[in-house]
């Protein structure tokens, strides 16, 4: 490979590829490095890809990209041991253009997306690890790879190397993540006949459904489970803060089995066969954990910058938009031939103004709050289930008696006040 590029992007996930695509399209000479055998071979996602942010890069991508199903229903199950209170929104407007979101399998999607960047003129080099940034006079001027004579230079380097961004850490942009800043997610892909999926999830042919699982799905530890429909597979997974697994001494794959065998979930999976098992970290530190994202000759995008909204399970969209904003900044920097931190700081400002940092700010204390006060998952979700059971069980007791019983179930006056305070505090961290 030639030794000097305009830009080197490390990592061909949604953030890096979005950045490389936009740069190549603008005629920037860009090298896209990927450590896997192919883009997507190291990448894991529950599976929801958001249409808007992808279309900001490739209009009408859904006409040719390898997608699984457009989602027409999003369900939320608040689970107890053998019951669940379920909320759902189903809207057929999501089943037609312009669509809201799609399930995808990342190994397929990321390959396709990276090929599109190559079509625009990006040079994709796989099976190459970027070992460290080459820094000269405090400025990043390239990366050292694990190929023989593997030093490559560029005006600017984009770190899209994911949640384990060893490169951003090497530059001192952040310390090592704490176990309560990352969630460990495990997932299985289960093969199931297309028609069975559609019948079981009440879907028209081709449509999809997502179900988020809270409460007993994670045995009361802070986290969520999920069950998503793909074309002829289901993705079932569970993610909890690493600190939660450590505290409760739970094996993640046993938690996954627990969810799969939960009486509320098992019927959905009946007759399916596991075809792949995957584990990955999700950066869930939120706004407070965002690292430094700009330096002289360097930008950080996507998971590497902790750009994940755990409450709304959004991440791939933030990755793509951050990649695109980084590209816009680099294109501008190139016209001035100035890749200093102060010039590249436009990227940080754009990020701050965008939905990305706005949403991270909105929920900046949410994860920490629910982590610090486990009663929401441990106590209130079961309480809600019992209340629903009392109210909807017809057993000769009057509705007033039932309401009194539910009221008593809330506990002593002190506990009721605590509940009221907790509801208010939850509103405070989510509003």
């Amino acid at each position: 490979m030639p030794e000097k590029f305009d830009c080197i992007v490390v990592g061909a996930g949604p953030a890096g590829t979005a950045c490389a695509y936009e740069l190549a399209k603008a005629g920037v000479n860009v090298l896209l490095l990927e450590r896997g055998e192919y883009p997507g071979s190291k990448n894991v996602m529950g599976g929801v890809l958001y249409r808007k942010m992808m279309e900001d890069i490739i209009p009408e991508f859904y006409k040719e990209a390898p997608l699984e199903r457009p989602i027409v229903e999003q369900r939320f199950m608040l689970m107890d041991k053998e019951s669940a209170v379920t909320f759902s929104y189903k809207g057929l407007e999501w089943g037609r253009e312009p669509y809201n979101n799609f399930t995808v399998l990342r190994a397929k999607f990321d390959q396709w997306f990276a090929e599109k960047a190559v079509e625009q003129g990006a040079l994709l080099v796989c099976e190459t690890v970027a070992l460290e940034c080459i820094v000269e006079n405090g400025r990043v001027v390239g990366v050292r790879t694990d190929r023989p004579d593997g030093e490559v230079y560029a005006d600017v380097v984009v770190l899209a190397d994911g949640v384990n961004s060893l490169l951003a850490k090497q530059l001192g942009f952040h310390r090592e993540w704490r176990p309560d800043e990352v969630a460990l997610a495990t997932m299985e892909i289960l093969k199931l006949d297309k028609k069975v999926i559609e019948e079981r999830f009440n879907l028209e042919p081709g449509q999809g459904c997502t179900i988020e699982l809270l409460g007993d799905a994670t045995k009361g530890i802070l986290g969520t489970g999920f069950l998503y429909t793909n074309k002829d597979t289901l993705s079932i997974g569970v993610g909890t803060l690493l600190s939660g697994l450590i505290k409760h001494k739970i094996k993640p794959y046993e938690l996954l089995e627990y969810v799969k065998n939960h009486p509320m979930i098992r019927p959905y999976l009946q007759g399916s066969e596991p075809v792949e098992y995957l584990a990955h970290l999700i950066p869930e530190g939120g706004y407070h954990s965002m690292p430094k994202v700009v330096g002289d000759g360097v930008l950080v995008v996507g998971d590497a910058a902790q750009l994940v909204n755990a409450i709304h399970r959004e991440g791939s969209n933030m990755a793509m938009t951050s990649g695109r904003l980084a590209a816009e900044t680099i294109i501008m920097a190139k016209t001035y031939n100035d890749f200093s931190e102060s010039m590249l700081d436009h990227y940080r400002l754009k990020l701050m103004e965008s939905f990305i940092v706005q949403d991270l700010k909105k929920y900046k204390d949410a994860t920490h709050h629910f982590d610090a006060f486990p009663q929401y998952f441990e106590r209130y979700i079961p309480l809600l289930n019992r209340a629903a059971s009392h109210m909807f069980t017809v057993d000769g007791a009057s509705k007033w008696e039932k309401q009194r019983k539910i009221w008593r179930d809330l506990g002593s006056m002190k506990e009721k006040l605590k509940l009221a305070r907790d509801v208010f505090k939850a509103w405070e961290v989510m509003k």
Partner: protein
Amino acid sequence: MSHSSTIEEKQYLVRFNADTKSHLHVLDHDICLTKCPDKICTIFCPAAVYKWEGTRMHVGYEGCHECGSCRIGCPYENIRWEYPRGGHGIVFRLG
């Protein structure tokens, strides 16, 4: 799918292109022996890469998902964690 699957069965579903040398290194086995009664990495590692063998930690790096949990979760920062050489390690085919 009526029976539950073990971690060995799960790992059997995954394609690995293992390198000949490990990208994971326990820096000091004595720390695991003397300071870490829980051997917590043997619990939270999603691929059961870490197995305690009485006096030292066995590291089955060949089955690693490269998630990074051990680097972050080891209470003694006793694990040196690198990416496997380019093209090596786990190869996800789907998700």
